[in-house]
């Protein structure tokens, strides 16, 4: 028996635990790899087929499929916790780290760091590929910096939103449906709200992403009239609120 030690199972330890768990489960690693690959494939496809509108920017065209990739990031965020409920490992996790706020914080830090890095690399690569493949003067360039940083952050926000929803819902299928709904529904339901459409449509993390990519699809009608950065801030704010609510629920609930 080891005697009493001052070793403490804190956030750092929980984070390493989460990382080991994450990389040893295929159902998390594969969609994360897909998140990395999809934007680049999208950029190649758009450039090869020349499917751009005259008013499109190179940046916007390069990130055509970033919306799909962002959705994958959100799904990974949800699965990081619902997978644990599904397989029963959540109890093992809480027995090892009984402070559940620490567990959720570790998952959040891991997801935010990972998706942000993956998205930054992949979206930058997509932009460079697009820039290389398209004729120089046909299309406006767009401002890649600091927009690409914002794009990466919007991926992290989507993953955290997935984590919050997953924590509240606990079932993989339900959580994935709910989080994809949050991403898609604002733009689908927007037109039903008449004059309020721009407000409703602007609520999705997808809207913030599209504005940041400077695509011609991002009209005020479809993604709201807020600027790209305030839009990102808005989505980040309600995601934070939802995460705090999830943490509160997690601490009270029986595992």
């Amino acid at each position, binding site marked *: *028996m080891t005697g009493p030690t001052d070793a403490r199972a804190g956030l750092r330890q929980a984070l390493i635990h989460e990382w080991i768990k994450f990389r040893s489960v295929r159902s998390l690693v594969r969609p994360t790899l897909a998140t990395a690959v999809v934007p680049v494939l999208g950029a190649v496809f758009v450039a090869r087929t020349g499917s751009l509108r005259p008013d499109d920017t190179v940046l916007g065209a390069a990130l055509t499929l970033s919306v799909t990739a962002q959705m994958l990031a959100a799904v990974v965020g949800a699965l990081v916790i619902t997978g644990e409920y599904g397989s029963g490992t959540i109890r093992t996790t809480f027995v090892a780290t009984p402070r559940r706020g620490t567990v959720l914080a570790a998952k959040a830090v891991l997801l935010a760091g990972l998706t942000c890095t993956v998205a930054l690399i992949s979206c930058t690569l997509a932009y460079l590929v697009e820039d290389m493949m398209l004729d120089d003067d046909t299309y406006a360039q767009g401002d890649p910096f600091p927009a690409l940083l914002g794009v990466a952050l919007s991926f992290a926000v989507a993953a955290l939103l997935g984590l919050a929803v997953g924590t509240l819902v606990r079932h993989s299928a339900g959580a994935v449906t709910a989080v994809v709904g949050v991403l898609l529904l604002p733009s689908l339901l927007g037109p039903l709200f008449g004059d309020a459409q721009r407000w409703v449509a602007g609520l999705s993390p997808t809207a913030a992403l599209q504005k940041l990519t400077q695509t011609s699809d991002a009209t005020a009608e479809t993604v709201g009239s807020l600027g790209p950065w305030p839009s990102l801030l808005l989505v980040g704010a309600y995601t934070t609120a939802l995460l705090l609510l999830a943490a509160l629920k997690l601490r009270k609930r029986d595992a």
Partner: protein
Amino acid sequence: MIEVRELTKRYGDRTAVDRLTFSVPPGRVTGFLGPNGAGKSTTLRLVLGLDTPTSGTATVAGRRYAELPAPLRTVGSLLDAKGVHGGRTAQQHLAGLAASNRLPQHRVEDVLGLTGLTDVAGRRVKGFSLGMSQRLGIAAALLGDPAVLILDEPVNGLDTEGIRWIRTLLKSLAAQGRTVFLSSHLMGEMELTADHLIVIGRGRVLADTSVRDFVETNSHTHTLVRSPEPEKLRALLEAEGATVRLDARGGFRVHGVDASSIGDLVSHHHLTVHELSPAHSSLEEVYTALAHEAAEYRTRREVRR
């Protein structure tokens, strides 16, 4: 040392654990016995901080589980064999747990060796047999070299050799001065493994006693008598104040008069007897009766509602 005081857990209007009070001291194997649904697993989940009690407290080494700074170093637990993701290898599962409590990574190799899993450490857990999963659960429980072990139905799914292995292991861990607390619904297993018993039924403590005392207090003696003249014998015994019941194997089961008195009686009245054997009801029977009473009570209450 595990201490449970007035512990109560209600789910809606169902009381799973009802003012449970007991303590589990170090240095011996304490069995937690009760039929399925008696509240054993709920109690263990409350002790491990997974569920929040409605009232009362449960502490391990003097603290609530959630307040232990690095819980795996104090308490090792096995809840069910399913606490592992099937896609992970045994090695990855244990390495993650070790990292979470700042345990040195050589502990992973240590417990893999101890539980005989070294050869399969790199295999995905979903290919494991029930017995191997159970061994992995034990390995995880031992990872932090804890002073307290809490195991829920550890022999489930183990073969005879595995059961013998775990029995020896638990006894040696208790002999090293650790607190060993294991639940089971199998009396026979407890009789062989545990030194002390806490028996619960419908969420309450029915007995908290040493295994030997439990046997002596609760096991009734009776005598089995077989005779070619059963009716005469029966009348005679009942006249002496004995309770006579038919035994399933033929003959009578006699309570209230011991074997030597029956022998004297029979020879005095010149009756023929083919068998006369004193017997103890097994602990299994006692426990079954106890569990049955608890179940009866529950059914009656539910009918009344």
